[in-house]
């Protein structure tokens, strides 16, 4: 069936489409290569001071060193663990709270101003308190990750719930559906697209939270390496850690995009 019956115009259209996609991808990769190339060249010919700006080759060298002395995976693993655990807690807890707020209009009204204020509050202001309350280990950093991500999870999820098609709601009510039936049969499935968007935003915030937590207090992790590298002027270490963060954050986003494809198929 495929291909066999397509007209010449359609084949041409498909080819044009494919070519456009390829061009976009080539330019994307090319742009990165250009930036890295110029950076490397400028550093190589001493136009810029690579002690301050580092350079791609020094990043690669730092990566090799970290790998060789066995600390690479330790730091990556710790930050990844903190981010993932914080992300999962924030999403699950945030979703649950959103469900509870949806089920009770009064609760929603009572908590709304609190949520708004907590959302506007720069969470790093809580840093000292968190250290005093929870110590300087992972729990403190995970806690930081959760509070950075959870408010947006609650707000986005709730907005998704409340923006479900009113006609569908009327239909369910006309069938005599109870509120929990409406929740499970209509609200939750209808708000899957908004859940995916929430996940996308939350994953970014979880990275902010975990790295911020490591800035405030930590003995290991990529955030720790960045702070440490900055303090002892090892900018190669700062750049390398940032580079790893880019890859990890991109990877996690990619996983969510895959989940999206699966769920919305």
């Amino acid at each position: 069936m495929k291909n066999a019956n397509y007209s010449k115009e359609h084949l041409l259209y498909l080819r044009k489409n494919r070519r456009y996609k390829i061009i976009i991808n080539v330019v994307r990769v090319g742009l990165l290569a250009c930036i890295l190339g110029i950076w490397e060249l400028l550093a190589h010919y001493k136009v810029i001071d690579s002690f301050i700006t580092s350079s791609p080759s020094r990043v690669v060298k730092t990566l090799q060193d970290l790998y060789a002395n066995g600390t690479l995976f330790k730091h990556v693993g710790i930050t990844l663990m903190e981010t993932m655990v914080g992300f999962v807690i924030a999403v699950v807890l945030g979703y649950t709270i959103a469900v509870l707020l949806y089920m009770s209009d009064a609760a929603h009204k009572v908590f709304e101003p609190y949520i708004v204020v907590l959302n506007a509050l720069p969470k790093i202001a809580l840093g000292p308190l968190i250290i005093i309350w929870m110590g300087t280990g992972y729990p403190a950093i995970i806690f930081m990750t959760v509070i950075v991500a959870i408010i947006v999870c609650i707000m986005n999820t709730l907005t998704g719930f409340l923006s479900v098609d009113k006609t569908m709601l009327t239909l369910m009510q006309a069938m005599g559906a109870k509120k929990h039936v409406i929740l499970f049969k209509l609200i939750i499935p209808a708000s899957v697209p908004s859940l995916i968007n929430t996940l996308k935003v939350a994953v970014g915030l979880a990275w902010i939270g975990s790295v911020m937590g490591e800035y405030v207090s930590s003995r290991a992790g990529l955030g720790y390496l960045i702070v440490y590298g900055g303090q002892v002027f090892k900018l190669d270490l700062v750049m390398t850690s940032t580079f790893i963060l880019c890859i990890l954050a991109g990877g996690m986003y990619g996983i969510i995009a895959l989940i999206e494809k699966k769920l919305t198929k």
Partner: protein
Amino acid sequence: MILSFNDVGYTYHTKDGETNAIEHMSFGIERGQFASLIGPSGCGKTTILSLTAGLLKPSSGEIRRENAEFGYMLQRDALFPWRTVEANIFLPLEVKNRNTPEMRENALRLAEKYGLKDFLKKKPNELSGGMRQRVALIRTLAAQPDILLLDEPFSALDYQTRLKVCDDVQAIIKSEKKTAILVTHDMSEAIALSDKVIVLSSRPATVVAEHIIDFGDNTPKSRRECPEFSQTFEVLRSELGL
């Protein structure tokens, strides 16, 4: 009488005050009748349906209904896009806790009888507007209601689809021998479809006139071709004050 309104009134309360939506409303509908309520827009037609279905309680007067189950069909089909056509049709069974094999089989029989057999596994967005409205009707019928409440179910369709779906819906409701109450502001739709037309005044709504319509051979198409059609249309028009 499967349903009768006796001197019913209904008042809305909002922060800004109260609105008399309905006043001294009385009418009756027989079992198997296809009745239309027509009136100027915003006259509280939907309120009447909600009262009929028991979603709202009248502020005064009395609504008597025989032991009857209601099914609602709305302006838009409101099919759930994440469910297949089949799962959409089963929705009322799930909600009303009557998801038994017999009920499901009955729903599927209806779907097949009215030409949805090949669409059962499809998602609603693969269907045309007219087809979707047909699915919505079968979904309403799946729970085996005695009275169908149709809230301008054709108003979101384009004119050609509308004529077709109109005929379609009427034929299905007649052949399933259901009682139906249609609210609409479209006079020709009311005349073409119903056995009885109840004309309402503007807010607060009350009954202005009732007409029994029995010309033609009871299909919307034959009705539209009858000379009485335009006469009735003129009568309704003057009663509505247009």
